[in-house]
């Protein structure tokens, strides 16, 4: 302990506090202070007395210095200034968050409206597609009707066609049908619009015959149809003395059933 006492009394600690030591002496003092409490306590006492000595000799700087100095320092963390800055920033943040809220709501509303509109449009598109399909069908029907009518008009205009009205037999005196025949074009038509044939059942059909040199020639089958306004084209034939219609089993027969003759007409 004598060594420590001598060290303290050497005056090195006072010089250390005054900053008047070499770097080596500084390290030595700091090592001694760590090692010996007496050195540490002595240093504390010297520091405290010199601080009081400075206080005893204090000179207050001019009042203006406080503001000047405080303004020259930069404050990194929490202080009044930064609180003020945050308060200024807040109003900027709020409308922004509201903007996104409203924007989201608007987007959602727009989406819902769009879906409804889309469904509406889809429904109409479907209707329109159906309409187009039915119009196409109608158009098709009209087109075929027109071509049929064209055929009928041609028959009526063509001087080679001969019109023959077949009259009802004793079996069905009221029955009648008109046959148009062109030996030149080898075509035979029957006019359903003016036909007055009793309605046939499902097992039976009318069959048109041509009589050529006393022999019957099949010209095809047809059904009674009171609603039809068409002319129906039958099988072709170049020669005929007479035409007749018999009621046969459905699909027609190879030879006519004479007792079932409905109408007949001769040239």
């Amino acid at each position, binding site marked *: 302990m004598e060594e420590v006492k001598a060290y303290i009394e050497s005056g090195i600690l006072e010089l250390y506090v005054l900053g008047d030591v070499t770097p080596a002496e500084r390290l030595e003092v700091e090592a001694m202070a760590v090692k010996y409490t007496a050195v540490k306590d002595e240093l504390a006492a010297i520091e405290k007395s*010199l601080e009081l*000595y400075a206080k005893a*000799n*204090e*000179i207050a700087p001019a009042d203006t210095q406080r503001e000047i100095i405080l303004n020259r320092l930069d404050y990194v963390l929490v202080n009044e200034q930064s609180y003020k800055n945050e308060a200024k920033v807040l109003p900027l943040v709020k409308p922004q968050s509201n903007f996104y809220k409203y924007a989201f709501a608007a987007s959602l509303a727009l989406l819902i409206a769009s879906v409804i509109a889309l469904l509406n449009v889809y429904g109409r598109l479907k209707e329109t597609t159906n309409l187009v399909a039915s119009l196409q069908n109608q158009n098709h029907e009209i087109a075929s009707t027109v071509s049929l009518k064209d055929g009928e008009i041609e028959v009526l205009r063509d001087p080679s066609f001969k019109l023959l009205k077949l009259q009802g037999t004793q079996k069905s005196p009221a029955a009648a049908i008109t046959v148009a025949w062109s030996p030149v074009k080898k075509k035979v038509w029957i006019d359903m619009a003016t036909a007055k044939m009793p309605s046939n059942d499902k097992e039976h059909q009318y069959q048109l015959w041509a009589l050529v040199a006393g022999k019957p020639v099949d010209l095809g089958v047809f059904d009674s149809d009171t609603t039809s306004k068409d002319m129906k084209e039958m099988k072709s034939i170049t020669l005929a003395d007479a035409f007749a219609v018999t009621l046969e089993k459905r699909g027609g027969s190879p030879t006519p059933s004479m007792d079932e003759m409905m109408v007949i007409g001769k040239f």
Partner: protein
Amino acid sequence: MSRRHKISLSEEELIAALGKREKIAAEALYDMYSASLFGVISRIVIDTATAEDVLQDTFVKIWNSFASYSADKGRLFTWMVNIARNLAIDKIRSKDFKNQNKNQELENNVTFIDEKRNTVYNPELLGIKDLVEKLKPEQKSILELVYFKGYTHVEAADELGIPLGTIKTRLRMAIVQLRKNFN
């Protein structure tokens, strides 16, 4: 004396606040230590405007280099007053300052300052000042030279024409006397 309320913190609180670089730390630092530091600076740098410059630089340096302060190695004021003293000495030794010829004759400085300035009336310090007055003249002069003039003990020995060992002993005795008086 009817000035704004001064901020005062314990040394531990102040050091913690300084570490966080809070403005209140700077305010407390100034209120607690500016007069003591300015007392030291003003006795080295006589010109008031220049002393104020040094005071400003001192606070800026304390603030910016606070990370290098370690409470383990001593009191906050000891660290700060050495910064102030070094900046003040650098100032009076700088070329442009010498050219301005503003430095005074050394012997008269302390008395000159005390005559020139009306140091703030502070009843708390009355007792301390009396105790300082009780120092022997030789103790007072060595303290003034090394503490207020920034002399190294080698320079002081040279100035006073006294051996180095005697300077050290006399300085120690002066501080021991202060301690007796303060405690």
